[in-house]
């Protein structure tokens, strides 16, 4: 692995339903930018849904990306919610008291 340009261990895949995305991999400081760019730059949907069943790891940098993305989407008239969180996602969201704020199903 190139130390200066390490691999991003996250996929942000558009789902069939417009505004719905499937996240697979690790959401941390390095991969957070990919999530923000991909979703924020996509055609505006009324409601953005992030399926996080495939997220094997997330830390506070990943949470920062989710909170920031939600704020930016709401600022432009959209919304964001999290569907089907993996155990890792559910655990950190509950630990940090973000379940309601991030609208976790």
């Amino acid at each position, binding site marked *: 692995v190139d130390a*200066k340009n390490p691999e991003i261990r996250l996929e942000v895949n558009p789902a069939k339903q417009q505004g719905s995305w499937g996240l697979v991999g690790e959401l941390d*400081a*390095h991969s957070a930018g990919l999530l923000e760019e991909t979703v924020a730059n996509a055609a505006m949907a009324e409601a953005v849904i992030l399926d996080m069943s495939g997220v094997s790891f997330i830390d*506070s*940098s990943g949470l*920062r990306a989710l909170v920031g993305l939600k*704020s930016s989407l709401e600022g432009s008239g959209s919304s964001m919610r999290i569907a089907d969180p993996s155990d890792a996602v559910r*655990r*950190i969201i509950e630990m940090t008291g973000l379940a309601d*704020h991030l609208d976790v199903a």
Partner: protein
Amino acid sequence: LNSAERRQRVGRWTINAGPGAAAHARDTVSNMPGVAEGDLADAMLVVSELAANAAEHGTSAAFQLEAEVIDGNFRCRVANEADASPPTGPWPMPDPDALRGRGLAIVDRLATRLDVRYTNGEAVVEADVELSTS
């Protein structure tokens, strides 16, 4: 433990403070003997938080990571040069709409001990995570 086993349970790494620092730090400890599958998630999360802080707030191109299985705990220590001390606690959980300040608050909740020191321009953060099976 014989000396070979003891060596395996202690690791020291120099990690480049670049964009992949947290992932690299997680990788180094993910295969440490003595950390069972059920304890790995918490250990990796703590290491990731400490490494991300060192990469973001450190002023050196690299930081030091040490990890050790000792007395039923997974202990990790991250040291980096810094212009200011990391927060020395308490580490309350920020409000839901806050963007920052969750890293050490998460570590504090996962760890049985969290110690932050800042001496002569070096920040050292050490945390113990109790192992359920060691």
